[in-house]
């Protein structure tokens, strides 16, 4: 990993240059008072100093609606629809980078998902160091996602007049290729970077009352907590929390066919474990028939199941779900409430012993 310095003023020229090299550039841009990741046609629209986006950059790697393959129902021919273009995502926050690390893991475990892999391979991630909390609901420091994971290609740190550019991969090098407005860091540049990094931590607070490493066990002993019923009462089952979450990746698959019943496609669309039908089987049995059970599943997945299955937390503390939820159900409050309930319980039962994985 190597470090370069780029004056902020060069950013636009760099973006334009990348576009002229046939890269599609996306990044945070302001729309109706919110920020969304969208194609940057005018470099002036790119806002790197943004609070958070409505949907996470996940939408480019696992599009909300993606054609898996096209078919001809008469001839039974089918061919995959994997269309990717070299894509640079600018301004990915560190929490979202951690989420991408989880998505990478999931889609490469067992049978790899070629669609995700193709998008991922064509994508260049230019992440940015978060120097101050982006919004009220975020709790990245608690989740350990306030520094960038390995997954980046380039990582920017705002030094005031310049960006420190960490090069994380060959793909990252490729982006800087032939761009003359970057220089090797001097002693004082290193010092500036270290100062900025040291100064950022006090701006963030720990919001989780327990340590993140305790979460899986805390959740294990909270399967029967009365809190789930409380959440279930309030939850609207609107599914917004799962739509905005950078680590949610569940999907539904449906076929679409033209009116001649000949040509069609099989598409996958983002699904949500919060909706009624998510876990229904053919006999009509619903394995998570109540909102309480579905909320429990969601938080278990965030704080325990995904960690056990993939070794990475299923929540990165971005706070999007907290901001979206109309009935104020948030991961921090939920985890803290469970923790408090445990603390105040007189006799603390031993955590259950985990079964070996099959």
């Amino acid at each position, binding site marked *: 990993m190597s470090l370069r310095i780029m004056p902020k003023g060069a950013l636009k020229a760099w973006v334009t240059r990348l576009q002229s090299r046939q890269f599609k550039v996306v990044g945070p841009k302001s729309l109706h008072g919110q920020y969304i990741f969208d194609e940057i046609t005018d470099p002036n629209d790119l806002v790197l100093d943004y609070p958070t986006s409505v949907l996470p950059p996940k939408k480019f790697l696992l599009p909300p609606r993606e054609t898996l393959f096209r078919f001809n129902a008469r001839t039974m021919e089918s061919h995959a629809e994997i269309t990717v273009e070299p894509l640079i995502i600018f301004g990915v926050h560190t929490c979202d980078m951690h989420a991408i690390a989880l998505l990478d893991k999931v889609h490469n475990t067992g*049978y790899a998902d070629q669609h995700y892999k193709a998008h991922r391979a064509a994508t260049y991630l230019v992440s940015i160091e978060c120097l101050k909390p982006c919004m009220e609901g975020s709790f990245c420091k608690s989740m350990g996602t306030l520094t960038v994971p390995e997954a980046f290609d380039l990582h920017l740190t705002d030094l005031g007049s310049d960006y420190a550019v960490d090069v994380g991969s060959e793909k990252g090098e490729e982006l800087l290729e032939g761009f003359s407005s970057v220089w090797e860091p001097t002693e004082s540049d290193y010092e500036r970077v270290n100062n900025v990094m040291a100064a950022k931590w006090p701006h963030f607070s720990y919001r989780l009352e327990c340590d993140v490493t305790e979460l899986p066990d805390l959740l294990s002993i909270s399967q029967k907590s009365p809190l789930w019923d409380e959440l279930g009462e309030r939850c609207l089952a609107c599914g917004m929390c799962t739509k905005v979450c950078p680590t949610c990746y569940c999907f539904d698959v*449906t076929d679409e066919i033209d009116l001649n019943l000949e040509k069609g496609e099989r598409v996958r669309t983002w699904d949500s474990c919060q909706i009624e039908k998510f876990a229904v089987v053919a006999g009509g049995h619903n394995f998570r028939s109540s909102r309480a059970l579905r909320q429990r599943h969601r938080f278990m997945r965030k704080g325990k199941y995904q960690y056990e299955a993939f070794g990475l937390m299923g929540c990165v503390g971005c706070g999007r779900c907290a901001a979206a939820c109309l009935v104020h159900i948030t991961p921090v409050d939920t985890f803290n409430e469970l923790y408090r309930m445990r603390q105040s319980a007189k006799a603390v039962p031993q955590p259950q012993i985990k079964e070996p994985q*099959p």
Partner: protein
Amino acid sequence: MTTLLNETLRQESIYIPTPARIATINPMTATEKLFRVALPSGFSLAHRPGQFVEVSIFGVGEAPISICSSPSHSNGSFELCVRSAGKLTNALHRLSPGGTIAIRGPFGRGFPIERFRGKDIIFVAGGLGIAPLRSLIEEVIADRGKYGRVYILYGSRSPNDILFSEDLKLWANAPRTEVHLTVDRTAPGWDGNIGVITTLFPKLRFHSRNMVAVVVGPPVMYRFVLMELLARGLADGNIWLSFERQMKCAVGKCGHCQMHHIYTCQDGPAFSYAQIKNLEEAL
């Protein structure tokens, strides 16, 4: 000879199925039909009992269906017993022999049949649960000498809903094999047991020490059958169950079948009771 799974994996996308022809269709009951699916020449299925395939009709959708024929009876084709329950399964029922479907798989782990060698086996099937079990039973019967006593318990809604009755007769005639049937509701001509599947247990004499149980049926059945089996001293690790969950991908991605850290499609659908007994929502 290449396996269908290799063909599935060879595709540009794991989600692309391979076309296959329906060789024969045999109506079984009012709601179930037996399909024999012929693989394209040069292909084998090479499945394990308890595995399933994803069956597609282009334009309608896809659904997981257990392979109900035994691996040793495959010969370039395999069987599916399908209940019409929704869009894909209804569309399958409307097809005629010679029609084309498309399949992916086989997926899942299936039953660890090698661990059953030398043991008595009790099969407990409820309704359509007999389908995945048939594959395993046939395998056991075909290699009868390698296993101990075999008990087959099968509960149906009514005598008219009994699936694979011919097979049941053949199995009953196999050495050291007992077949016990029960129905929830009787019909004229039925002189067998009436009642839920657990009503068969009191009449059974078996030694649980060296025994495995394999249980497949609707979700409601499991808890009661488990109680019977555990009460008779079967070890948690010797009780095997197969789970049904909504599945949209069968390759551990779509999240529908997730129970705790487990993806039913990949880590199951067959599990030992020991593996899942502490998982809320599993049963």
